[in-house]
């Protein structure tokens, strides 16, 4: 067994029960192992010890405004599709301390940033890997890097899982981000009934596998995985034509559909909070009652919040029409000019978690249908 040649780019077979030693090795190296678990009838990303914590034999049924965990009909661990949470919470925390100030005569500043945790993220979907790469572009620019994101991100170990079981709101195939991961991971699993196929993505990944009872990847298993992925591609619940984006959006800023969708949209900001690529944040000062201590925090914000675009001259986007338009034209439009890619990976979360079932793929189709070129 020890003579299996290991190198970056190769695929080997890992017996299922060997995920536990792999995770404990990661913990020995100082990583916190985080993965999918079930809490409150939904999948969440939380600390896991091993296989026993994973949502075995479960999957989710998702439609616009609907999410249910159901039996998958098999005994796999990773057939569950993404829930409301995404991995962005780990690199871009929903609430994080920036600085603390203590008044004693004058103000003294203390650095409040805890040292960045070492996180091993286990079970990252291809669409979610793509979302991480998109956030990298926003937080790790050439001319500026966000220190909080940078430190958490560079410490992380990513175990991806290819997606054999897309759900009703998925459209990663349209966005070119899945169902197979094409990079950006340390290790990537494809889960078959008997075994995990493991693609080695980095030297760090290779290092973690060394000494585990690996097997050569069986040809039949590789074919099974490929067939599964090809079939997953065909079973996406949604599709989106992207050939005419971003132009379609940016040339239709006065399209009547914006008004139509605004009549339904509640400006609740759910879509931006569940979206794994949305990066907007606000600052808040939390001050003690005696006014002597202030903690400055950074918190997730959304272009749907009324205060988001408020300034002395008035509110730039006072209406739901203007806010929905900002959301959609940013994600599927101006993002491309800002970062070279579109801001959507087709994970479907914003569709599933919209309380009034607004569906980005339908909205874009509607803009196309009654296109009014300005």
């Amino acid at each position, binding site marked *: 067994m020890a003579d299996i040649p290991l190198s970056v780019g190769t695929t080997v077979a890992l017996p299922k029960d060997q995920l536990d030693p792999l995770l404990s090795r990661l913990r020995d190296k100082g990583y916190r192992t985080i993965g999918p678990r079930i809490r409150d009838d939904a999948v969440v990303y939380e600390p896991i010890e091993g296989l026993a914590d994973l949502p075995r034999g479960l999957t989710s049924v998702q439609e616009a405004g609907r999410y249910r965990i159901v039996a998958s009909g098999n005994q796999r661990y990773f057939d569950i599709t993404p829930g409301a949470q995404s991995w962005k919470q780990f690199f871009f925390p929903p609430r994080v301390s920036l600085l603390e100030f203590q008044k004693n005569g*004058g103000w003294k500043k203390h650095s409040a940033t805890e040292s960045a945790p070492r996180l091993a993220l286990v079970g990252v979907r291809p669409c979610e890997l793509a979302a991480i790469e998109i956030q990298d572009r926003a937080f790790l620019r050439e001319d500026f890097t966000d220190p909080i994101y940078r430190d958490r991100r560079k410490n992380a170990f990513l175990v991806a899982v290819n997606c054999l079981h897309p759900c009703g709101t998925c459209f990663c195939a349209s966005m070119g981000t899945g169902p197979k991961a094409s990079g950006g991971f340390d290790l990537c699993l494809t889960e078959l009934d008997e075994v995990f196929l493991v693609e080695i993505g980095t030297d760090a990944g290779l290092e973690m596998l060394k000494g585990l009872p690996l097997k050569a990847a069986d040809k039949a298993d590789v074919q099974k995985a490929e067939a599964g992925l090809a079939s997953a591609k065909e079973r996406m619940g949604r599709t989106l034509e992207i050939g005419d984006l971003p132009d379609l959006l940016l040339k239709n800023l006065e399209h009547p559909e914006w008004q139509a969708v605004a009549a339904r949209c509640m400006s609740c900001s759910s879509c931006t909070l569940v979206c794994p690529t949305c990066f907007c944040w606000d600052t808040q000062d939390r001050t003690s009652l005696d006014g002597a201590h202030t903690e*400055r925090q950074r918190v997730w914000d959304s272009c749907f919040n009324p205060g988001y675009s408020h300034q002395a*001259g008035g509110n730039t986007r006072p209406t739901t029409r203007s806010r929905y338009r900002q959301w959609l034209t940013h994600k599927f439009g101006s993002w491309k000019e*800002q970062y070279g890619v579109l801001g959507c990976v087709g994970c479907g979360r914003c569709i599933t978690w919209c309380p009034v079932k607004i569906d980005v793929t339908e909205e874009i189709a509607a803009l196309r249908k009654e296109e009014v070129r300005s």
Partner: protein
Amino acid sequence: MTTLAASKRPAAVSSEELLNPCWAEVTDLREEIDSTFTVWLKFKDPALQKGYAFEPGQFNMLYLPGYGEAAISICSDPEKRDAIGHTVRAVGNVTRAIGRMKKGDEIGLRGPFGTHWPIEQLEGRDILLAAGGIGLPPLRPAVYHILHNRAKYGKVILLYGARSPSDLLYTNEFEAWRKSDIDVQVTVDRADDTWKGQVGVVPLLFYRFRLDPAKTAVMTCGPEIMIRFVVFEALARRIPADRIYVSLERNMKCGQGFCGHCQLGPFFVCKDGPVFPYSVIEPYFGVEEF
């Protein structure tokens, strides 16, 4: 689509430094007009003060613990290096608290941020500056630059308007500017008994001049509605859109293009602006509530 080159920040500045306010102290605070004051700040660390340089049109983020942070343009002479001036209108949390400060009080400062008026590139040209209300402070460093280098520019005209005579800023400096051959034209929306000058909005002042479209560059800052009309008048006089520069205001939190707040289409006003050639923002600027 190219925006103006970003600031001339020393390359050594790290991301941490860009995000962390450093303590400055108030060296002077004076009311200019009702609820608008100019506050002068000096870094407590002399090395920071010595190293601090800015370009006309750039802004700082001013921070008071417990109140928050606000983007405020630098209004002082770029060559004056011992203190940094900001003219502030008290409109909200931060700006009101700044207005209550006294000499020696401490405030967090980070900056300078953003693009600047391309004043050095415009040597040899006629310059038309158009400001409305609190839009004059970000243009004043450009005025100072022109004063220091007056011979390098052709005709220089400043159009300035405010709601009423008592809302006009920096009136005690206009005589000196006129002496240096800057044609300062002032107008108010509503006159009072003391007012002998022009009445009407800033764009109307365009009708008093013949501008040479081949030579003139326009820089404008003020309420968006005023900017719209200034641009309209300038374009009507065939001044090319890429020689009309506008400074925009948006909600800002980071100043580094990664909190999202200040977006205008593909642009982050904090780093791709606040000063833009009009040609660049034209497709989006006219779109209501965008």
